[in-house]
């Protein structure tokens, strides 16, 4: 007998409308209904469009850099321009592309759907965060026009207080973009705490959401430090406050501490959401319950925590004390533990699964391969003695491209293909998807594997010229980068084709079990026309599909309702 504090929920199965007439895409029409929408799905697509645009811009800059490096001497641009291009490539890729990429685009779209909510907790704040992002991007653009920054994306003092380029407007752009990032993180945390559907306990949350939660925590805790750092840097340039400037009694190493206290955790803002996507892909395309749910979920939080304790490994040769270097090196190795836990659990999930090599799964496998290289080389350069040799060489460049591009971008592409039918209601071409994945995988390795070799032989990063012995490897790398560009063009072509001419997608083409697949493709304006009730975990592939389509029944609905007691929310 339920006591008076409990209420009874009447639930029943809700069939999915396979041919939805009314969707979030045609709910309202006109450009303004997109630019001022508060629908999390449309905001997700706004973000997706924006980050793809900036990925394109950053990518073109990268191709310019690679073209310049075809010859040991000057090829197409002069040295100062080269400095500006690599700075812009880094700043655009980091602040405008990779930080908002997975959370703000795919996360915005799927986080509320995965917990059965109608929207994020603060829809207007969500829209504001996109507008603030665009505003920050305009500041960055202004800075490019008035004198593109040539300091590297790290803005190290004292050079950044002396260079004649527009450091102030660029740092203000970073400040504004950080604010946008904070608002997204804040929104996600509150949404996950307060808006979960009946029955969706923390233990039934898809792992993508655990990773977004860990990411949001880092965004909240680290980004304010970036804000104050770039503010102090701007004040250093405007007023000469002398906190970081050695000629005024300040300390440039203090700037590096401040900067990396944000920017190292920010590395995990970039990669942890990718881990979440991989968990979804591996389980779905192996048709198997994820192995070690809690191990994967908690390892995301562990990475978020340890990530705050290792920033000093960027400063081994910056003049911090030897003791600090030893401690930071020691702590750095700890990051490998939760990361390794994830890799082993993913591999264990695939073991004896019925693996379906669809395009998203191919990306997941590419991720496992590339990220493992990126991660293991990270352990190597975390070792103090090796780091002193490899510091600021192409080895570092190759390492973080394997993690950021081989990890985050590859996972995002996997997620993009996985959720493409849900977002657009159209299927992409599986054959071209697989071919393109192969092209990207091979050309990525062509581009960056030679950089490990060059780096270990002493080729410094950010150099405009180089000694002749590296020419062969540089040219090989450049050709790889062109092929990589071709791969992305191929993807753009077949995805655009799918958008206009592609076959209609069913509601659940991959037979996944998480909640976003239990509604039409594309979803309706409110995601679900009922309040979902969750009885099973998101990876329970052994249970019948209809048990995943339960929702709160209205009064006097069909006769076969199930009654369950539930604690008041």
């Amino acid at each position, binding site marked *: 007998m339920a006591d008076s504090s409990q209420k009874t929920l009447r639930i029943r199965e809700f069939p999915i409308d396979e041919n939805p007439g009314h969707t979030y895409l045609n709910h309202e029409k006109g450009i303004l209904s997109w630019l001022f929408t508060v629908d999390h799905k449309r905001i997700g697509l706004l973000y997706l469009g924006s980050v793809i645009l900036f990925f394109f811009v950053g990518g073109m800059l990268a191709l310019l850099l690679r073209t310049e490096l075809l010859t040991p001497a000057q090829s197409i641009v002069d040295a100062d321009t080269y400095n500006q291009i690599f700075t812009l490539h880094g700043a655009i890729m980091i602040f405008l592309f990779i930080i908002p990429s997975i959370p703000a685009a795919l996360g915005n779209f799927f986080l509320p759907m995965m917990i059965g909510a109608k929207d994020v907790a*603060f*829809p207007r704040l969500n829209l504001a965060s996109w507008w603030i992002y665009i505003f920050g991007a305009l500041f960055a653009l202004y800075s490019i026009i008035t004198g593109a920054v040539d300091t590297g994306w790290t803005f190290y003092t004292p050079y950044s207080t002396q260079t004649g380029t527009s450091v102030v407007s660029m740092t203000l752009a970073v400040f504004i973009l950080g604010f946008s990032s904070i608002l997204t993180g*804040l929104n996600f945390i509150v949404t996950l705490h307060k808006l979960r559907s009946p029955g969706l306990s923390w233990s039934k949350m898809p792992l993508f959401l655990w990773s977004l939660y860990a990411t949001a925590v880092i965004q*909240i805790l680290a980004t304010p*430090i970036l804000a104050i750092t770039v503010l102090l840097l701007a004040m250093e340039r405007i007023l000469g*406050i002398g*906190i970081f400037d050695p000629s005024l009694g300040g*300390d440039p190493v203090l700037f590096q501490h*401040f900067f990396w206290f944000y920017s190292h955790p920010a590395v995990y803002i970039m990669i942890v959401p990718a881990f979440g996507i991989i968990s979804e892909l591996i389980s779905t395309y192996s048709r198997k319950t994820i192995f070690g749910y809690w191990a994967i979920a908690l390892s995301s939080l562990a990475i978020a925590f340890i990530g705050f304790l290792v920033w000093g490994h960027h400063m081994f040769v910056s003049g911090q004390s030897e003791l600090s270097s030893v401690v930071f090196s020691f702590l750095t190795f700890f990051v490998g533990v939760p990361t390794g836990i994830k890799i082993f659990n993913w591999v264990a999930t695939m073991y004896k699964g019925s693996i379906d090599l669809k395009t998203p799964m191919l990306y997941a496998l590419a991720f496992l391969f590339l990220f493992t290289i990126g991660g293991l080389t990270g352990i190597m350069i975390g070792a103090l003695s090796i780091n002193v040799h490899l510091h600021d060489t192409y080895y570092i460049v190759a390492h973080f491209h394997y993690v950021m591009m081989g990890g985050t971008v590859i996972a995002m592409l996997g997620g993009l293909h996985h959720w493409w039918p849900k977002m657009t209601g159209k299927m992409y071409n599986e054959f071209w998807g697989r071919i393109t994945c192969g092209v990207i995988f091979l050309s990525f390795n062509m581009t960056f594997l030679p950089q490990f070799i060059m780096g270990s032989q002493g080729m410094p990063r950010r150099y405009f010229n180089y000694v002749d012995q590296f020419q062969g490897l540089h040219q090989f790398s450049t050709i790889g980068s062109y092929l990589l560009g071709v791969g992305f063009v191929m993807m753009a072509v077949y995805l655009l084709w799918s958008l206009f001419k592609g076959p209609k997608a069913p509601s659940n083409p991959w037979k996944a079990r998480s909640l976003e697949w239990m509604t039409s493709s594309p979803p309706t304006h409110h995601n679900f026309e009922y309040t979902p009730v969750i009885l099973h975990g998101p990876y329970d592939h052994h249970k019948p599909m209809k048990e995943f389509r339960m929702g709160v029944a209205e009064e006097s609905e069909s006769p076969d309702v199930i009654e369950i007691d539930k604690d008041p929310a």
Partner: protein
Amino acid sequence: MANQSVATEKKSHLQHHFVDEDQQFESSKMGMWIFLVTEVLMFGGLFVAYIIYRAWHPDLFYEAAQELDVALGATNTVVLIASSLTIALAIRAVQLDKIKAAINYMAATILLAGTFMVIKYFEYMDKFGKGIYPGESYTYDGLEHEMAANFFSIYYMMTGLHGIHVVIGMVLIGWMIIKAKKGLVHSGYYTPVENTGLFWHLVDIIWIFLFPLLYLID
């Protein structure tokens, strides 16, 4: 005010994606607390800079702090604590549907905040008159320590960023007065006033830390 009208107005404040009032209120409040965490961390960066410079140059902080006016700083501390009381009373008044009293309390808060800013203005002007500017423009020769300018850089950054927050708080409270006058906040829906109050308490508590750290160095 009749219960009936409160109940109907209550409903109109519930946004479509929340199940009920409680969920909406708790979400807003949690969001505000998380935002305050980011504020604390942002100021935290400045506090770290303060700690590091003070650890390196304890004599500098002792000498330079003598230039600051303890009486004015203490007055400002009292003013801000009083304003925290008035905003708390305003929230209570809104919860009890005493909208007129709430508006008066909020106006008093703005007045106190204004007093704080005026006192701060005179303090800054006094410093500028002596040539105590932040960083490079520093020309004052009353202090012998070669790093004197750095102390005042930190002083201006900390109190300046705090001052900006005081102004933002004044704008927010003004907005709440407009909301109250339009009858948009009442016992059934006082979330924005409550959150503004939380923000104002943060502004207050940061000053409570700044005052002893900058003025009372012995």
